[in-house]
């Protein structure tokens, strides 16, 4: 198989590392090779966070070659747009609609929409924030919800069973049930 390249982008504190761990575990359960690169420290403090994830066979670099990304999961629209330098014409964008304002800057939603429209490949704008807030009373599940969406819609080479099992093996017991709900919730979308 061709190696599958995924970027998860967001704002520090949105849970990208947890997502990455679940995805890694699921890949391992499916007998696939996995490599990822993440950043810690300064960037965790509300800065832009970009993690590279690669799934497949005999993966060399933990970094994705610019243009070779298959899927970008943007936990925030501006952070999704920030990964454009890694995206090519075929890259699929899965974007959480909820904008997190940049400190000291007015949010211009129409401008963000305009930029998103310019993306040549497939774009899926999902209001994961509102959906998880409404159904699960906690928008922190947005990331897992979007992962669920990617799995159910076959945007990522992982099965729902392995993602569920990975989740159970990765997340603290108290939070497993809600996370599983978030995964299932994504099925209808």
């Amino acid at each position: 198989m061709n190696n599958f390249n995924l970027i998860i982008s967001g704002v520090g504190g949105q849970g990208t590392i947890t997502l990455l761990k679940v995805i890694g575990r699921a890949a391992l359960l499916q007998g696939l090779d996995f490599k990822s690169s993440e950043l810690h420290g300064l960037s965790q403090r509300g800065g832009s966070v970009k993690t590279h994830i690669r799934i497949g066979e005999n993966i060399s670099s933990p970094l994705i070659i610019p243009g070779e990304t298959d899927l970008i999961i943007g936990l925030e629209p501006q952070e999704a747009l920030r990964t454009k330098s890694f995206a090519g014409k075929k890259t699929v964008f899965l974007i959480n609609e909820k904008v997190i304002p940049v400190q000291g800057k007015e949010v211009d939603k129409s401008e963000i929409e305009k930029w998103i429209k310019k993306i040549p490949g497939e774009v899926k704008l999902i209001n994961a924030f509102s959906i998880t807030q409404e159904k699960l009373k906690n928008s922190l599940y947005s990331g897992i919800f979007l992962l669920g969406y990617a799995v159910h819609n076959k945007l990522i080479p992982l099965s729902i069973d392995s993602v569920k099992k990975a989740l159970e093996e990765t997340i603290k017991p108290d939070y497993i049930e809600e996370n599983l709900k978030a995964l299932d919730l994504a099925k209808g979308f």
Partner: protein
Amino acid sequence: MHEVLDNKKKTILLGNDAVVRGALESGVQFAATYPGTPASEIGDTFYLIRNANKELKENFHFEYGTNEKVALESAIGANFSGLKTMMSMKHFGVNVAADSLLPLFYTGVPNGMVLAISDDPGCFSSAQSEQNSRAYAYMAHAPMIEPADPQETKDYVKYAYQISEKYNIPVIVRLTTRVSHQRMPVDLDDLKFNKIEADFPKDKPDQFSTMPPYTISQHKELLEKIDKIREQEAEVSEINKMHNEDAGDDMAIIASGVSFHHVMEAQKFMGLNIPVLKLGWFYPLPEKKIKEVLSKFKKILVVEELEDYVEKEVKILAKDYDVEILGKEYLPTAGEIRPENVIEALGSFYPPKKLEVLEEEKELAKRFPGFCPGCPYWFLFNTVKQVAPKNTVFGGDIGCYMMAYFPPFKLQDYLFSMGSGIGIGHGVKKSLNLSGNNQKVIAFIGDSTFFHAGIPALVNCVENKSNPLIIIMDNSITAMTGHQPRPGIDKEPNIEKIVSGIGVKNLKVIDPINQEELKETIKDFLNKEEVSVIISRRCCKFAK
């Protein structure tokens, strides 16, 4: 249970956790560190698991040291007393520890000792410099090996312990951010536990003392040891490995660290099959192994991050061969090396392949890291911004508070290293006073940084008589690097006792939410003739 203790055959590990696993599979008994990213998780994971089961509780000790020098010395003492030890730190930590690091290679170690050091090309989590710590290998004659990924990291740590025990010398496993913070499936072996039995050997009195003229003979012995390690280990080690060996071409690549993986990735992308010598050993360098490669090819491209240490060595070795050595004229010295850099470099020798990339949105607002909601620093910096005279000099230091450099505060006129906010602040204020200039100086420092390197600088202010205002921002945690504990929470050592013990008379402990009191005190202390200290105390919301 933490994945580092998994009893599966294979689990996904972060590079830094692979260091921990490698140490535990080697039977490490004593580990010490001072937190610093990109190496932080090595200590953090040791800390998390230190009491996870009976074996660990009984056979393993971990501690956060006050700074890297102290942590290293702690590990040295444990090693001299019979324990298998590990010490980890970020690149700048090596500078702090260097004073004890160099003699350590002269005395050698009676038991296994591995130092895990993580550099940060690209400065993802470091200010101050893009330090290439490989230079310490030359200066200290420190055996140094460079893994490229978590699996190698675990294997290299175990190998490092073997070398260390065989030659009685500490071995450095040198990581970088992209290795420390890389994850991949890692094959696991059993953990090993050795009962702690300490006894400081008194039979060879010269063994652990670097006293001239003995120092000279220790130096000589060290050089001989390195030659031996080169011949018997580095030259024959499988961690220096030829890839694509049979590919017929007149060009080869020599690569080290994570750059090796970028080289392989770039080759796949471009449909190339160039032979690559991956160097696991950095010091001593396997010269014969390299010469074998030099004898077979016309052109060698050296791919290594930061300064061209390997390239220079290879150029010297190449004198007797008809081969051209290339490197930094095609690849960056500053910043990290990424797959795209290698693709571009190889495009000078093979049919280039263009990257098809979408255009960036240049108008996109930049997102700076900032203080968390509810962070006590909001109150402090807000108040300082209001009351400090316009031309006040603000001394920054290393910690979350360096984000005061960014808008909206912009309260940082210089930033160097741990503790230097006070150290440089003294020099500035002293000079201003000497010239009769009434400009004010406020130096910020965190609690953990104060313990790390702030105390000697404060002593200097008192002794050499200057009067900056020092604000110790006590959030009762080492926040920036991942919320590690700092010395003296609810017990000794106590910051205000230390400060007053040094002889600081103008001292006040203030909760920064009391903005009026803070304002008045800042105004008052800025006009004092002697150094003054405000301890701005409010817990980080992550402090327990």
